[in-house]
């Protein structure tokens, strides 16, 4: 470049078109990762949604494969179904009136709303436990061949556009058959394990954060705890699973139970909660502590009457986000019993259990296309729960944001 200061024209300062272009390209290229990441998210969600709906030809186990108009009461649907199966009016009525029989009937035959059937949109069908799938088509293919499939329906078969994620999916137990597999047991497993884990992780995590931020800002114990926490945070979660397996499951003899899982997950959650709790404690201005000390508050009174209340919204947000992280953890729990086939609801801390992400893992690794649909439905449930928590945290963060 040849710049001559004597020349008065603006060009004399010299623009380098080449460099300008690099500059612009560079700035644009930097946005690429973001675009890719968002693209990936969109694809992921799209794939999950798409996979969670399919067009199926189902052969009813006992019944005739009829569908019923939307708007009927469930009992009425079931009554008509029984009649169609060949029960007399009398038998059907007595079955439906006896509370025990009625309960069994409803457990074995679920009245499900289908988005579309061969007889039109939004119809009820009665799904038996041993209904058999004849064919399963992706949404596009199924809709394209709808008429053809409808024409080819055999005796006792029905054509349905099935949303795999429906209300009964949330309450069904796992099953060897994808049609009747549900996530109910895993949801309750997650609720149990998570609540017990938080019962451990919250006091320990917040207690440690308070100790480090309010009592021991320096000194040997502070350094030991701090180094230890930093390294713990880097330990892969599956190693916590090995710890749980060795200590809780075997050494303490708790077995593959909710309690073992909760202890394992609780330990895993501690470093995360410590980090978020420390951040919110640090955000409390020093001047508040000074004010409280000047009024003659003891350390404990300063911490628990002033600092902790002021940091509470931040801590709650942090705990919610940590809980969201823990919900998604599958690896450590695979080692402490969550991989078992558990077809019944947990009844207490010593029940066997499974949790949502592990259930999804099990479904995915079955390597059967229809179970992939079940897995997609499970993923939708989990993502819904997580986004609920995420937005709750966001809301709390904004609602209680303080300007000091």
């Amino acid at each position, binding site marked *: 470049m040849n710049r001559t200061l004597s020349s008065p024209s603006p060009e004399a300062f010299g623009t380098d078109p080449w460099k300008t272009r690099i500059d612009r390209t560079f700035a644009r290229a930097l946005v690429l990762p973001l675009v890719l990441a968002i693209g990936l998210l969109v694809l992921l969600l799209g794939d999950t949604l798409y996979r969670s709906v399919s067009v199926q030809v189902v052969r009813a186990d006992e019944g005739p494969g009829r569908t019923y108009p939307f708007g009927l009461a469930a009992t009425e649907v079931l009554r008509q179904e029984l009649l169609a199966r060949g029960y007399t009016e009398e038998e059907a009525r007595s079955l439906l009136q006896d509370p025990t029989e009625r309960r069994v009937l409803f457990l074995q035959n679920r009245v499900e709303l289908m988005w579309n059937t061969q007889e039109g949109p939004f119809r009820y069908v009665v799904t038996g436990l041993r209904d058999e799938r004849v064919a399963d088509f992706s949404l596009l293919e199924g809709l394209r061949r709808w008429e053809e499939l409808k024409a080819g329906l055999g005796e006792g078969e029905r054509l349905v556009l099935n949303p795999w994620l429906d209300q009964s999916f949330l309450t069904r137990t796992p099953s060897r058959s994808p049609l009747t597999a549900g996530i109910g047991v895993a949801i309750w497993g997650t609720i149990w394990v998570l609540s017990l884990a938080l019962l451990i992780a919250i006091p320990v995590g917040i207690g440690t954060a308070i100790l480090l931020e309010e009592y021991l800002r320096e000194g040997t114990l502070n350094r030991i705890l701090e180094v230890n926490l930093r390294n713990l945070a880097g330990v892969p979660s599956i190693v916590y699973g090995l710890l749980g397996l060795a200590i809780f499951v075997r050494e303490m003899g708790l077995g593959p139970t909710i309690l073992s899982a909760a202890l394992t997950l609780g330990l895993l959650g501690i470093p995360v909660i410590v980090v978020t709790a420390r951040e919110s404690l640090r955000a409390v201005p020093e001047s508040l502590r000074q*004010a409280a000390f*000047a*009024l003659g508050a003891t350390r404990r009174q300063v911490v628990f009457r002033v600092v902790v209340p002021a940091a509470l919204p931040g801590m709650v947000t942090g705990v919610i986000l940590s809980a969201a992280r823990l919900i998604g953890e599958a690896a450590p729990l695979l080692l402490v019993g969550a991989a078992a086939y558990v077809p019944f609801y947990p009844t207490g801390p010593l029940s066997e259990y499974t949790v949502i992400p592990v259930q999804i893992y099990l479904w995915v690794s079955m390597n059967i296309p229809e179970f992939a649909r079940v897995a997609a439905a499970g993923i939708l449930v989990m993502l819904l729960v997580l986004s609920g928590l995420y937005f709750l945290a966001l809301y709390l963060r904004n609602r209680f944001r303080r300007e000091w």
Partner: protein
Amino acid sequence: MVSLEMLKEHETVRTAPVSEAEALVDVRGLSLWYGKKQALYDISVRFPRNQVTAIIGPSGCGKSTLLRSLNRMNDLVPGVRVEGEVLYEGVNIYDPRVDPVAVRRHIGMVFQKPNPFPKTIFENVAFGLRLMGVKGSELEDRVVEALKRAALWNEVQDRFKKESGLRLSGGQQQRLCIARAIAVEPPLLLMDEPTSALDPIATQAIEDLIQELKTRYTVVIVTHNMQQAARVSDRTLFMHLGVLVEEGPTEVLFTKPKHPYTEAYITGRFG
């Protein structure tokens, strides 16, 4: 340039010294170190009862440090070391048997920037009272009383139980902090540049308040503003580089300073 060595050679210049009987606080040979750095050099001074004493001096001279050693707030700074005595009603508050928390319950403090708790106005003022175990209607009465004495009651009486202290204006916040400090009836009130974050009108209100307060309390106030010191205080201390250079009645210090540095400072000829 003023050097520390030159300053340390001279005794503090005292005009009309305070007698032992008049003094609420008697500082004797106080030195203080932050780690290795010495911040106060052998300070001796008496603060008379029911008077306002101002501490002035250039930035970093140790005004806040001296003030904060009167209620042992400096104990909270890691690595602080103190020598000498601070006698409060004849009791050395640095005696190992004295609990700094007890000292602070007895001495009020107001800070440079208003620092209300993120609680209601009521809870702010009630904080110190609750620490002392005051409850029920007595608590309520004393909160109202403190708000009245801090000249805030009229502005907040209709909302003081609901509204957060943080929602007040800066000047109101500072009066809230004063109310909070005086609610426990501390015989001594320490104020560290209480108006430096406020506008002139709010400052005026606080200064008026200080005049009021002195009938019941002993006040020590740090200020950067010499007019303020002249307006509100009965006695003034001039510090420099951690040394107490001169002390005496305010009008003497401002009109007939005896030490050349004091004169240089108050006439604005200071380096």
